[in-house]
């Protein structure tokens, strides 16, 4: 069961909740539809899981719809996803036809709700084609890109751009991820839910249970990277960094991730990671079920240092989660990790396994810095990356979209 708005008061303060209710009043009764491609696994589903009920509590008529597709459809959309992030992929005309056909089948199912909605948020490329099918739409359609599409593989972007440009506006997590488009491009970073199973406070007993389950040694430092087994998260590079540190410090490593239903590539990457890990008993490669939120929460709390050594990244919510647990993060110098990790304040940005190893060793030699950076990181997340800020920006966006003005100040 989702948390209510008032349950966040103890974390963000009553003024923040009051502010959301006041904005919500201005939008009472507005029909909102979110559409994405999976109800489980990945950051988008996690965001929609809390956002939809909270919008309803604020008086909006919000619903969350998921498109259904075959295994082939999700292989194609994974290729589109990778292509948009710049990975050279080949998508044939036949593949695009499958993509459009699956969207068309889903449209027939969703037609009434999409046609009547005041605002439709389409998340990522999988359901993007729905717009072209909804000729009798009444509301505004907004494309929400959760990934970095700043340097896409050209053939993929060439096919998708005309679709995206049909939207009334788009949302990107940060300007670096955006492409030049003919409509307004809003900037809304994502967020985490501090009361979700993945982020809520845990009893010491719950944390210790997970430590015991995976045989982690409480007397030695623990490095943790939580992420899907995805090429861009560079899990093999993390193993390489661990090996460099292991020569001088008795660290343990956990690489843990789930498998999303729209990510067929994950298995292949997992095999590469297992091969790199070999028989080292201090490397724990964990393929977790999609609902292992409490386990992930505990692993982050058990960590001495959180790693997120991505070579490409959307926003990097696992970084936000790690920081919320009061841990410094050593992250790849890419994407949204840069917005969150600032050298010597909340962690370190690195570019190579060598850089990661160097910073791990630095922190292990400066234990006070681990606590200080962790505290800074937690307060930074409280101010900027909790769901209350995220909802506020969505409400603001809806007001701006539904009440267009020439000026830059709207009084409601």
């Amino acid at each position, binding site marked *: 069961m989702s948390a209510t708005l008032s349950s966040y008061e103890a974390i963000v303060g009553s003024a923040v909740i009051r502010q959301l209710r006041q904005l919500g009043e201005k939008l009472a009764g507005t029909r909102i539809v979110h559409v994405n491609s999976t109800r489980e696994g990945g950051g988008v589903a996690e965001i929609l899981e809390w956002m939809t009920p909270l919008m309803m509590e604020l008086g909006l008529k919000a619903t969350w719809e998921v498109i259904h597709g075959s295994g082939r459809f999700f292989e194609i959309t994974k290729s589109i996803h990778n292509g948009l992030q710049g990975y050279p992929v080949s998508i044939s005309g036949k593949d695009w036809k499958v993509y459009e056909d699956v969207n068309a089948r889903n449209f027939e199912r969703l037609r009434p709700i999409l046609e009547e909605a005041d605002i439709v948020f389409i998340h990522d490329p999988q359901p993007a084609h729905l717009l072209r099918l909804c000729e009798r739409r009444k509301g505004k359609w907004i494309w929400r890109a959760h990934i970095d599409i700043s340097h896409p593989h050209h053939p993929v972007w060439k096919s998708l751009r005309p679709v995206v440009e049909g939207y009334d506006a788009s949302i990107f997590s940060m300007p670096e991820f955006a492409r030049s488009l003919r409509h307004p491009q809003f900037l809304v970073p994502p967020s985490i839910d501090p009361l979700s199973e993945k982020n809520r406070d845990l009893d010491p007993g719950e944390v210790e249970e997970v430590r015991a389950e995976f045989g982690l040694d409480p007397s030695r430092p623990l490095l943790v990277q939580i992420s899907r087994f995805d090429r861009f998260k560079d899990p093999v590079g993390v193993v390489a960094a661990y090996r460099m540190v292991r020569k001088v410090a008795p660290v343990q490593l956990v690489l843990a991730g789930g498998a999303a239903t729209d990510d067929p590539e994950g298995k292949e990457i997992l095999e590469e990671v297992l091969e790199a890990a070999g028989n080292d008993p201090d490397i724990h490669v964990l393929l977790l079920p999609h609902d292992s939120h409490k386990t992930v929460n505990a692993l982050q709390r058990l960590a001495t240092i959180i790693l997120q050594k991505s070579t490409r990244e959307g926003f990097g919510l696992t970084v936000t989660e790690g920081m919320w647990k009061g841990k410094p993060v050593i992250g790849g110098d890419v994407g949204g990790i840069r917005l969150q990790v600032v050298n010597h304040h909340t962690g370190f940005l690195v570019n190579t396994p060598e850089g990661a190893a160097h910073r791990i060793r630095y922190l292990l030699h400066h234990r006070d810095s681990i606590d200080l950076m962790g505290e800074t990181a937690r307060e930074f997340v409280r101010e900027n*990356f909790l769901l209350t800020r995220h909802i506020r920006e969505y409400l603001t966006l809806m007001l701006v979209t539904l009440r267009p003005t020439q000026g830059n100040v709207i009084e409601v």
Partner: protein
Amino acid sequence: MTPFEVKDCALLTRMSGLPPALNLRELRERIAVCGENVLFHHFCETPLRGTFDNPDYRNDFAVWSKLYLGDRVLGERLGILDPYAFPSLGDLRAATLEVLDERLSELTMIPWARPGDEFFFSEATTVVFSAGIRFTQPSRLGAFIRKMTNGSVYFHFLEARRRPPLGRDDFTAWLMEDEEANRPYIQALASIDFYFHTLVHLRRELGRVLNEVKVAK
């Protein structure tokens, strides 16, 4: 005194449509032609934006110059510019361009950022709404400020300065309805070097100085 009606605001940031700047010369060219709203955003709206509270500088141009152009000298010169000290955004633009032109004249090579580290020009729309709170006693101002959102503190104490009466925050403007009686409060507000505070710190500082006046009275 007339009641003080607390307002709140929320910011929605969007791309400005200007091409990003990859080097110092492009930064100068874009700043010369960008809308005033873009300039205002990168100088003044940074505290309301969900990005790291950069410990060095309060405006985006200074941060970018230091981190991505690798020009610490320029970062320092831009970082000290206080946008609220200028009578208009046009004057702020002129001062910024002066700093950039001076630096360009000193350098033999134009500093460049790496691809991916460009400066992106943004702007924002502000949605203003009533917070549903009113009060009439100046002695309670500090207590109310301590309960305000970041948006309210920003709107009344920072953003207010570009609305008539220009250069004056809303709290001071309200207290001046009875200037004689409220002089200690007005002086307390004027004592804050506000530009270099985060909104969280600013709220705390406003509450502190106003409370000190209340206790002294």
